[in-house]
């Protein structure tokens, strides 16, 4: 029996009084494209951020590739890992942010090779030629020496995807990757993500693009108030929702 790439078990997280995640459990299988949908404040972004430990969970556990994240079990107690260990675990995931977060003082190419060269200590020449290949893959070969401020939002987000892929992650996390884009730029980013999904990359995507979810997702998870309400294939959840809350959300969005 194969194991899931990501196993989330009874994960809770509060910000002060507000509980963002309530005992959430979920599996993500290798090669799967999983779309998380729900209203803002439903906990979908928090769940994504917990998987690459930008947000530390309060209780529960997350296993990635069989390895428990953020803590070590010893003598019946959990001990938080050192920052170095957490940084090492993060290398297995690539993150794409809503607001791109490209490094503005570096060119597109330098943004992409920063992680491979500085963190993974790979040879600069090799990293550079791989970055060129990634830029070609996201359709931006001509923009290698451009600074983020000279690129459109859609181009910046595609560079950000290339930057995440350069670390050769086993899982890609997308946090509302098209929400900050002008409507006419959404398509180019979704096209890159679709190509990535077809290449077999495991992806967790927080999105409001139901069209994308319908077309690309292997599974759609609807969250509300920090809990998973309903999940299933796109046609099930988006086409024939069972839960009243899912129906209400979908009718409000479409």
């Amino acid at each position, binding site marked *: 029996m194969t194991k899931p790439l990501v196993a989330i078990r009874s994960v809770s997280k509060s910000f002060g009084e507000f509980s963002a995640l309530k005992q959430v459990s979920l599996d993500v299988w290798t090669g799967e494209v999983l779309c998380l949908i729900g209203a803002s404040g439903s906990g979908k972004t928090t769940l994504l951020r917990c998987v*690459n430990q*930008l947000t530390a969970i309060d209780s529960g556990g997350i296993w990635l590739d069989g390895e428990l994240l953020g803590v070590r079990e010893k003598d019946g107690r959990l001990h938080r890992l050192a*920052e*170095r260990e957490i*940084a*090492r675990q*993060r*290398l297995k*995931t*690539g*993150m794409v*942010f809503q*607001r791109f*977060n*490209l*490094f*503005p*003082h*570096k*060119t597109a190419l330098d943004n992409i090779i*920063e*992680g491979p060269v*500085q*963190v*993974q200590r790979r040879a600069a020449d090799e990293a550079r030629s791989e970055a060129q290949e990634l830029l070609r893959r996201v359709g931006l070969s001509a923009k290698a020496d451009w*600074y*983020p*401020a*000279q690129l459109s939002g859609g181009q910046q987000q595609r560079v950000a995807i290339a*930057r*995440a892929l350069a*670390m050769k992650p086993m899982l890609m996390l997308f946090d509302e990757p098209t929400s900050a884009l002008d409507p006419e730029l959404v398509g180019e980013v979704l096209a890159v993500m679709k190509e990535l999904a077809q290449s077999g990359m495991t992806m967790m995507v927080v999105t409001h693009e139901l069209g994308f979810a319908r077309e690309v997702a292997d599974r759609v998870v609807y969250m509300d108030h920090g809990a998973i309400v309903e999940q299933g294939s796109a046609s099930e959840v988006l086409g024939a929702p069972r839960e009243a809350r899912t129906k209400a959300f979908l009718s409000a969005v479409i």
Partner: protein
Amino acid sequence: MRPAETLAPGFPDLSQLAVARPLHWRRWLAAAAILLVLAAIVRAFAYGQIEWSYVQRFLTAPAILTGIVNTVVMALLAMALGIVLGVAVAIMRLSPNPVLTSVAAFYAWLFRGTPLILQLLLWFNLALVFPTIGIPGLWSARAVDVMTPFLSALLGLGINQGAYTSEVIRAGILSVDAGQYEAAQAIGMGRLRALTRIVLPQAMRVVIPPLGNEFIGLVKATSLASVVQYPEVLHNAENIYYANSRVIELLIVAGLWYLAVVSILTPLQMLLERRFARGVMQIAK
């Protein structure tokens, strides 16, 4: 209904008319008044009891030239020490470790809270507290011999500067979007590497104008080092006028040199600003 292509009559075409130049007589009046006042001030100095030939002669006197070199050397070294301390203390101040945070806050409080001249005198008189200083068993020396005017001035000015610089650097770090730090973490960087590779280079852009300000302040603050007998330009100018009583002339000489040094700094700062504006000013250009 009127077709859209025809325009309503009664609005003549003005595009062929020239625009007349206005007279601006109020501006002329204000300029004339200011120039008159300035001329009066210049005239007063020209006919005042200043021997301008002394100014000219002492402007390049050996003691004055050594003095200004000492001033510049001290300002550069103290600023370097101040930046090193400032960056370290700013990083400490923002660390999750409460001990580091408190020590950093205490340092800024102590050295910003006491007069610079007092700090300089304390360093110079350190021998009164510790007659001998050193590392036990390895090396020791008499504090009087170690605390030369040069070292007292460097420590006094540099450590004081570090306290101010740390706040400037901290403001710069805080000005960088939190998303930058998260993006750095997401590609596997630790806190320190994210700071040095991603956050600090962006903070530099914000930090350089106030640091330029600080450095100009420091160039002039070196004149306080005369209290610990450091031979900077004002100290040497004073020594000369004690001998020849040409007080005003030598103060003017020192003043001109300070102005010259500060004037050179401004274009240097612009070069630095351009260097660190990479990626940001590309479109504004």
